């Protein structure tokens, strides 16, 4: 447990020293979300309709940008090896890395989303649901993404390959996450979607760290 906190603290410390990492993902989120109205047209009714989907896809892509570096830097300088042979179970350390990744890449998106939502003319209720959905969904993205990041460690064409592996697995999160907001806007209540999203999150929290750990050990062999 101590070791897990130490990893989270270490990763956050390193991000503090190079703030650009947090900001790049965030700016990407903003830019991508802004491209859609530019491509589609500024009518408020249309924007309100596409907002949940657009913002969720933006969040997906922004998270994916940062996935590669989850393990790559540690792998390159040998600290990943040290983690693999540390007495602390590797799965706990991997969980720590995932939490740190979410804090750096996912949480800022959750906080930024309402601002972008206003650009799409969503009302406060919808903005609230959007934040809650992203709060449940972004950890899920980090968890699943960790598996992909671990599998593609040091592999040629890593970035694109990572996207190919991970995006199909992101589909349920996208469907339930965006669906929650759309459902709320349609007056049907977001409860169903959000509970399903939460259920998938719990399942992923149990299984994804193990899969990622197995993939890391394979990459280190």
């Amino acid at each position, binding site marked *: 447990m101590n070791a897990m906190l130490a990893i989270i603290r270490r990763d956050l410390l390193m991000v503090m020293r190079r703030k650009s990492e947090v900001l790049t993902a965030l700016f990407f989120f903003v830019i991508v979300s802004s491209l859609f109205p530019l491509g589609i047209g500024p009518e408020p009714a249309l924007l309100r309709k596409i907002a949940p989907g657009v913002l969720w896809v933006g969040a997906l892509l922004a998270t994916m940008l940062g996935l590669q570096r989850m393990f790559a830097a540690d792998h390159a300088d040998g600290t990943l090896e040290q983690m693999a042979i540390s007495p602390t179970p590797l799965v706990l350390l991997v969980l720590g890395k995932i939490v740190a990744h979410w804090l750096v890449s996912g949480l800022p998106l959750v906080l930024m989303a309402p601002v972008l939502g206003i650009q799409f003319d969503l009302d406060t209720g919808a903005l609230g649901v959007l934040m809650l959905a992203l709060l449940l969904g972004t950890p899920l993205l980090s968890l699943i993404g960790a*598996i992909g990041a671990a*599998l*593609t460690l040091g*592999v*040629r*064409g890593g970035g694109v*390959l990572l996207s*190919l*592996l991970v*995006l*199909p*697995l992101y*589909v*349920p999160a996208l*469907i*339930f996450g965006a*669906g929650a907001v*759309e*459902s709320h806007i349609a007056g049907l209540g977001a409860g169903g979607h959000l509970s*399903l999203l939460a259920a*998938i999150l719990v399942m992923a929290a149990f*299984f994804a760290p193990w*899969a990622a750990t*197995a*993939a890391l050990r*394979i*990459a280190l*062999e």
Partner: protein
Amino acid sequence: MNNRLINWFRFASPHTFYPLAGKMIPIFWVLAALFGGAGLWLSFFVAPTDATQGEGYRIIFIHVPTSWMSMFIYMVMAGWAAMGLSLNARLSSMMAQALAPTGALMAFLSLWTGAFWGKPMWGTWWVWDARLTSELILFFLYLGFMSLQASIDDPRRADKAGAIVALVGVVNVPIIYFSVKWWNTLHQGASVSINKSPSMAMTMLWGMLLMALCLWMYSIAVALTRVRAIILERESHTDWVKQLKEIKA
């Protein structure tokens, strides 16, 4: 009984499996031809013309079996990959690697025939119904598996990494299917779904079953051929491969 068990394990090495596979391949091609012949005859000549959809509906005799096979092959592939990972068995992983392209082909055919069905029926090449969309995602899962294995140079690492992808995929396929179904029913507009196909006459069902069996036999034949090629490639440094007459020639 004990003897039989030991006999099977004897074929778990690439060295002994190679000739066995060679002998089995022609049998499966013959079976594929037989089932295929019967299935196509049933589909084109015996099954009645549909009242609403005319002759064009006959494409389901390819579409549905290819969908079934794409799912089935994914399960089998994941099973072999899991065995290869847990037992550290090279041949099992090679089987998984051999099955993947065939599975991807089935998924692709399913999507393609789905489009060909959709166009005359509903005027569009693509329909975002639950089954087709899930099939598309399954196709991506196959591509991901194959790309990952192709990108990793060390064959053992490729085997194990692929196994993890396949297993994660197997767990996710039901979740993805469920979520897409949910999404589809929520957004169901006037679009007709391929699910709502005409009620099946027995002949139609038999036609699809026979075609499915044909594709199954075909897949086994092709997978065995491919695994023999993979064995030759990966074991090319061993003595027994160097002694084979097709290599010496």
